[in-house]
């Protein structure tokens, strides 16, 4: 009975989405307030019914209702309850329902947090979100209905959740990632609404900025969680594989990062408007592309379990309609926008422009590397793959260049920066960064040009960020007062940039100084990895709730002292008969020691992988710091306090020296 109600709720949500995509838009175009007033109730209703559908599906999982095909395929009565719950988005249908839930959640959030926006604007934004929702509800209902029944032959038990997904990282990774993907739909909707009514101004930028930032922050966390999960669960210690599915999430992140920065320029200085709109469209299109790549089955990976060509073509159609429609609108409306502000060639505007050029180049690079093999395959021009070396050789220089530019850009001023002043300003931070980098190189004992560049870029960003913070926080009333006077959005920027530096440092150090060894061991043997001695003490059978495992025991010694005891496992999940390697990691802020069991080679001996991973944690900590910066930035006062007309004209944030001033709006 319940599943049919879920189906009904989905259909009702679709109907509400159809109304939402038409009624408020007509109201906005014809200037009828009565029609615009429908926007909020419709959006709320859509959320309620999607939530209901989601809750019913979750209920079906928790009570083991195997008459529902999706539950039977993705769950099992032996699963612990939390995996039953996360299995809701463990497969194709449920994860799309989650997508739809997120979308209606974001739509609801727009209705709640945008009360001060003009009614015309909000109606258009909500209508655009409604249109996207129509597409996805249709997709779920027509091609991927999670409520399909297996009647009358109800299976006695389910086929179990893929053991790879039975993990805490995978409970959280998809919702976070989807929050990010779907979040860009809000920035997209704002851009489309602005194009429709031709109001591409600073106010528009200020409205869409927090939405973009928060979507970006979620996406950052989602990507980091995926990487962390791959590290301990899937990758034998690798943290990024340039797998097309990973790239699919990196693409909107890169263009979203560009969008955040260009929105800053549009808000503060009123320039780059057309560019910003284009980036908003591109970021959302890339989110859709990511969903298409992962969900259509064109890629074979852990993510694409069930593939069905019908689904792929439907998603491709959605993507096509979105891109073509928004670009046509862009082509007709964007030239209306005029730019009046001027800026010098060394201004902060120009530095942010270069930031955008680098980030968009990186997006293009990753895009080419990901799509080129797919396109060739589709055109039947041969099967090929583009491996990690391609991405490593092309992406690293761009990342380093972005870091170097970032450090300079931090010191630049809006409108105009004096070249001589900037050069003098950079001298000491540069010297300090070089010294620190040299010290790090000596500490890790080995110089390679790439390691040096990567570490230098990270140190340089850190030094420049703190230097600027020091400059800005000097105050007659003492340092503490000066620090406290900084706005939350400034602190957000500081954290965001420090997070970038941490990721750069982590990536460089672990790639250049990490040690990975595959060794043949039997109980009693020991192996060295870096300064650590790993002793294989024992291995034996163990029973888990839904698996049996070979349970290994290893002691880790440093300088003759035992630092930890690790228990990697080789699990055999009984229902699906699938083997899983569970690595065990002695995690630390500055290094991880990683042990994983490979296959059994003889009666006694096993293949064992031992790894020393310096600074690997910084990758994910850095991402968290970045995301924290994003959340801090949207907590800035100016988004909450309604700035009156008089105040808007006034100078709000004179900087420490008082030489220049930022003008909001």
């Amino acid at each position, binding site marked *: 009975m319940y599943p049919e109600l879920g189906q009904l709720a989905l259909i009702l949500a679709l109907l509400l989405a159809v109304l939402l995509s038409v009624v408020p838009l007509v109201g906005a175009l014809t200037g009828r307030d009565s029609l615009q007033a429908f926007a909020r109730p419709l959006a709320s209703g859509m959320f309620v019914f999607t939530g209901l559908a989601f809750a019913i599906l979750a209920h079906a999982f928790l009570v083991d209702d195997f008459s529902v095909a999706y539950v039977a395929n993705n769950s099992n009565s032996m699963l612990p309850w939390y995996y039953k719950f996360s299995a809701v988005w463990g497969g194709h249908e449920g994860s799309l329902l989650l997508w739809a839930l997120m979308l209606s959640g974001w739509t609801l959030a727009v209705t709640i947090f945008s009360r001060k926006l003009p009614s015309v604007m909000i109606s258009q934004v909500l209508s655009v979100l409604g249109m996207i929702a129509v597409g996805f509800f249709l997709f779920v209902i027509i091609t991927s209905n999670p409520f399909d029944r297996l009647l009358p032959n109800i299976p006695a038990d389910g086929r179990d959740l*893929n053991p*790879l997904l039975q993990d805490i990282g995978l409970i959280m990774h998809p919702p976070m990632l989807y929050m990010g993907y779907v979040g860009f739909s809000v920035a997209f909707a704002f851009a489309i609404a602005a194009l429709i009514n031709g109001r591409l101004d600073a106010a528009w930028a200020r409205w869409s900025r927090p939405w973009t930032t928060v979507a970006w922050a979620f996406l950052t966390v989602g990507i980091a969680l995926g990487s962390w999960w791959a590290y301990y669960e899937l990758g*034998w210690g690798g943290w990024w594989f340039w797998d097309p599915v990973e790239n699919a999430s990196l693409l909107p992140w890169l263009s979203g990062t560009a969008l955040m920065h260009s929105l800053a320029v549009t808000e503060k200085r009123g320039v780059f408007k057309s560019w910003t709109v284009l980036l908003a469209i591109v970021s959302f299109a890339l989110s859709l592309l990511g969903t298409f790549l992962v969900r259509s089955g064109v890629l*074979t990976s*852990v993510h694409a*379990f069930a593939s069905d060509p019908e689904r792929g073509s439907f998603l491709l159609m959605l993507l096509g309609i979105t891109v073509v429609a928004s670009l046509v609108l862009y082509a007709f409306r964007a030239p209306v926008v005029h730019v009046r502000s*001027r800026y*010098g*060639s060394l201004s902060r505007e*120009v530095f942010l*422009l*270069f930031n955008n*050029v*680098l980030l968009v*180049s990186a997006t*293009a*690079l990753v895009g*080419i*590397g990901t799509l*080129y093999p797919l396109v060739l395959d589709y055109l039947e021009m*041969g*099967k*090929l*793959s*583009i*491996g990690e*070396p*391609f991405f490593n*050789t*092309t992406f690293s*220089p*761009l990342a380093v260049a972005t870091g170097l530019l970032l450090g300079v850009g931090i010191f630049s001023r809006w409108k105009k920066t004096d070249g001589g002043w900037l050069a003098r300003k950079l001298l000491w931070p540069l010297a300090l960064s070089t010294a620190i980098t040299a010290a790090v190189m000596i500490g890790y004992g080995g110089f390679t040009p790439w390691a040096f560049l990567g570490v230098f870029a990270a140190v340089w960003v850190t030094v420049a960020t703190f230097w600027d913070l020091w400059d800005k926080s000097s105050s007659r009333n003492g340092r503490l007062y000066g620090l406290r006077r900084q706005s939350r959005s400034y602190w957000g920027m500081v954290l965001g940039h420090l997070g970038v530096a941490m990721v750069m440092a982590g990536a460089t150090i672990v790639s250049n100084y990490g040690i990975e060894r*595959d*060794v*043949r061991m039997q109980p009693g043997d020991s192996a060295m990895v870096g300064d650590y001695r790993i002793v294989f003490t024992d291995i034996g059978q163990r029973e888990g709730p839904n698996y049996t495992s070979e349970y290994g025991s290893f002691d880790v010694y440093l300088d003759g002292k035992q630092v930890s005891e690790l228990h990697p496992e*080789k699990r055999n999940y009984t229902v699906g*008969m*699938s*083997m*899983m*390697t569970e690595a065990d990691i002695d995690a630390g802020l500055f290094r991880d020691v990683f042990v*994983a069991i*490979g*296959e059994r*080679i*003889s009666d006694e001996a096993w*293949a064992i*992988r031992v790894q020393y991973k310096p600074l690997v944690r910084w990758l994910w900590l850095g991402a968290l710091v970045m995301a924290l910066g994003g959340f801090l930035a949207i907590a800035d006062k100016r988004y909450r306090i309604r700035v009156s007309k008089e105040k808007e004209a006034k100078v709000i944030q004179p900087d420490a020296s008082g030489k220049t001033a930022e003008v909001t709006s």
Partner: protein
Amino acid sequence: MHPIRKKRLIIVLFLMAGIAIAVGLTTYALRQNINLFYDPTQIAAGEAPTDVRIRAGGMVEEGSIQRESDSLKVQFRVTDYSASVPVQYDGILPDLFAEGQGVVAMGRLNSEGLFVADQVLAKHDENYMPPEVAESLERAEKSRADAEKAAQSASY
């Protein structure tokens, strides 16, 4: 020239230079890092280049896995049931690597016809078959059927 135009020109030139460098790097890197796929029949026929990083795939031949007793070196044959190629690998094989399973190996073919793999991929699902392998098996199946038909018609 008008100073604003000059400034714009400089910015545009910078952008062009940046894009040119990016395109150059991309094509260079692409040329270095494209890994073409070959099936055992193609490799046995000598169609695959030696000492270039390529991908090869097929089914692991029954009874072909040989391990060395003192290291992780392993040798096995990959087949599409028409031809087979010896593959050597030093390292940990994936969980679902087994005889009769589909695999894709990355590596180089040496002059003796031995495929030295640096990476072996199998999938985390026993029903999964890498698409390239599935296709090459189909092709091999078809050409065998054609050959049989030809043989039959020849005998008439």
